[in-house]
C-alpha cells in the first residue's frame, strides 16, 4: 500500500470503504455489487479531479513518492538481457547510479540513471539517488563505451541533486558534472533522457544533455529544490509551496519553456498507483523517440543537439 499524501486522503477514504464493503459482502454472502459500483465510480471521479488539478508542490510530493517506479523498475520492465556494469575505473562504484547494456525493442542500447531506494534501508545504500563524482564518471565511461559500439544511450533522471559531502568535493564533484555535460553534448550516438521523478539541479543536468528530454506527467525538474529556493530567496524554507509555483518546475511548465520535448502521461492517480501502465507509457514514448533519432544521420545529431540548447531562453 503506497504511503498516503495529504491531498489523496478523500480518495483513500473511498478506496478503504470499497474494500470494507467487498469483504463484508463476501463474509455475509450479500450482493452489494451496485453499492460498490457506485462507490467505485465516485472514487474514479475523485481521483481524476485530484490528479487533474494538482498544484506544483503536490507534484513535487508525487515525484518524490517512494513507491513511484524507479530506474531499476523501468530497466526491468522495458529492457531485456540487461547486464549491469560497475565502477568508474578510477576510484569506486557508486550505488546511486545504475548503468549497463540491454536490449530495447530488440536493439542493444546503453541504459543508465540515478537509482533511489524504495525504503530507508535501500535508500541508505543508494544514498537517496544522490551521486558522488564516481557515479557521474561511471556514467561517462558507459556513454563513451556506447559511442564506441554505436549504441544509443537512454538516461533516467531521478535525483534530489548531486551529493553535497566532503568526499564528493574532494574528488571533484564540480569537475565530474562539468565533464559529464561535455561528454553528452558531443556524444556521436542518439541520447534520450527521461525525467521519471525528481530532476534535481546539477545532479540532473549531468544526465540531461540529450537529443530529447521526456518528462513524466508528474515529474519535476528544477535548478534547486523548492525548499532551497524558499530558504534562500524567501528566507523561509516553509514557503516551499509558493516557491514550487514561482519556479516553474512541472513537466507542463518545462514543455512550455522548450526544455522538455514531450510529456508522458501517467495513469490516473499517478505512476505509483499503477506502475505497469506508467512503464508501458514510457516504453511507447521511448520507442517513438528512438525511431525518430535513428533516422537522423550521425553527423547531424550533435549539431542539432547544440542548436537545441542554444535556443533555450530565446536569445540566440
Amino acid at each position: 500500500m503506497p504511503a498516503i499524501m495529504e491531498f489523496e486522503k478523500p480518495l483513500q477514504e473511498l478506496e478503504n470503504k470499497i474494500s470494507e464493503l467487498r469483504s463484508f459482502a463476501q463474509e455475509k454472502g450479500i450482493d452489494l455489487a451496485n453499492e460498490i459500483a457506485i462507490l467505485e465510480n465516485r472514487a474514479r471521479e475523485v481521483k481524476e479531479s485530484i490528479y487533474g488539478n494538482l498544484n506544483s508542490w503536490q507534484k513535487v510530493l508525487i515525484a518524490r513518492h517512494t513507491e513511484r517506479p524507479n530506474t531499476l523498475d523501468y530497466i526491468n520492465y522495458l529492457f531485456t538481457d540487461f547486464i549491469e556494469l560497475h565502477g568508474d575505473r578510477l576510484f569506486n562504484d557508486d550505488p546511486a547510479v545504475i548503468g549497463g547494456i540491454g536490449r530495447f525493442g530488440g536493439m542493444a542500447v546503453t541504459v543508465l540513471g540515478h537509482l533511489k531506494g524504495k525504503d530507508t534501508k535501500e535508500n541508505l545504500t543508494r544514498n537517496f539517488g544522490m551521486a558522488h563524482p564516481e557515479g557521474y564518471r561511471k556514467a561517462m565511461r558507459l556513454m563513451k563505451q556506447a559511442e564506441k559500439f554505436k549504441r544509443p544511450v537512454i538516461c533516467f533522471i531521478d535525483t534530489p541533486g548531486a551529493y553535497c559531502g566532503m568526499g564528493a568535493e574532494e574528488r571533484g564533484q564540480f569537475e565530474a558534472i562539468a565533464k559529464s555535460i561535455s561528454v553528452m553534448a558531443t556524444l556521436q550516438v542518439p541520447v534520450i533522457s527521461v525525467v521519471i521523478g525528481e530532476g534535481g539541479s546539477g545532479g540532473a543536468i549531468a544526465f540531461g544533455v540529450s537529443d530529447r528530454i521526456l518528462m513524466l506527467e508528474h515529474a519535476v525538474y528544477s535548478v534547486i529544490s523548492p525548499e532551497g529556493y524558499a530558504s534562500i530567496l524567501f528566507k523561509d524554507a516553509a514557503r516551499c509551496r509558493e516557491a514550487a509555483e514561482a519556479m516553474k518546475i512541472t513537466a507542463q511548465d518545462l514543455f512550455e519553456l522548450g526544455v522538455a520535448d514531450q510529456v508522458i502521461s501517467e495513469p490516473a492517480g499517478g505512476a505509483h498507483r499503477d506502475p505497469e501502465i506508467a512503464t508501458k507509457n514510457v516504453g511507447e514514448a521511448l520507442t517513438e523517440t528512438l525511431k525518430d533519432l535513428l533516422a537522423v544521420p550521425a553527423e547531424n545529431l550533435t549539431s542539432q543537439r547544440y542548436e537545441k540548447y542554444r535556443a533555450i531562453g530565446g536569445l540566440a
Partner: protein
Amino acid sequence: MVLEFFRNQKYITLQQELEGRDIPEGTWIKCERCGEILSNKELEKNFKICRKCGFHFRLNAIERIKITVDEGSFDEMDAGLLPVNPFGLPEYEKKLALAREKSGLNEAVVTGEGTIGGFPAVLVIMDPEFMMASMGTVVGEKITRAVETAVRAGKPVIIFSASGGARMQEGIISLMQMPKTVAALARLGEAGLLYISVLTDPTTGGVSASFAALGDVIISEPGALIGFAGPRVIEQTIRQKLPEGFQRAEFLKQHGFIDLIVHRPELKETLALLLALHHREEK
C-alpha cells in the same frame, strides 16, 4: 617631516575609527583574513592584495580588465544585452535594477576581445559585484557568443570565473546555460583552440560544474573558494564543521583539480606566456 606628520595623523584617526568599529567606506578597508587596516589607495596599487597576509580581495570586471588586458586593447562585445526576467518576478526585477545601478554593468559578465602581452584572445570576465555573478540566461548567452566568436576568429578564450552558481530566479533556464556554454567550448576544443580557465573567489555551483572546470589549463588565484556545493550546504548535510582550507585553491591543487595557483601580480605574465606557447602563426 611633513610626510611624517600626515602619517601620524592618519594613524590617530584610524585608532578612533577602530574603537568605533566603523571604517568609512572609500578610504580604509579591513583585510577580511588578517584584520590589517589597509588604505584603498595602497590596495589598488597592490592589485588589491593585503600587504600583510597576501589575501586577494575580489575584483570587479573593470578592475580585472585593467590589470590583465593590454591598455586600450579591450573591445567589449554585447554590452547592451539586458537582463531578462523570464518568470516576471517583481523582487527579481528590483534586484536586477539595484545590481545594474551598483555595478554600472547590464549583467554579471563582461565579454570582449583584447590582447595580453600582445597576444589576442577572447576574454570573459565575471563580476562578483553583480548578484554574486550568478549565471542566468544573459550571462550564459554572452559567454556562449564570446566562445562562438573565438571559434570563428580562431582565437583562444580566457574566462575569469567568479560565481555563486546558477541564478535561481531564472529557474530551469539558468540550469540550461550549463550545457549551452559547455557545448560551445567543446566546439572551441574541436577547433584546436586554447581555453584557459581562471578561477577566482568564489567559483561554485553551476559555474564551477560547467565551463569553469573545463579549461585546457586551469589557474586559480590563491585562497579562492572553489567547489560544487557551498561550505554552508555541506556543513548542513554532514552536520559537522569543515576543516580549515577545505575547498580552497591550495586544497584543489593538492587534489589534482587545478594546474597552478598564480598570485595576481604575476597573472598577466603567466597568461601571456601560455598564449605565446599556444600561438600559431597565420598561414
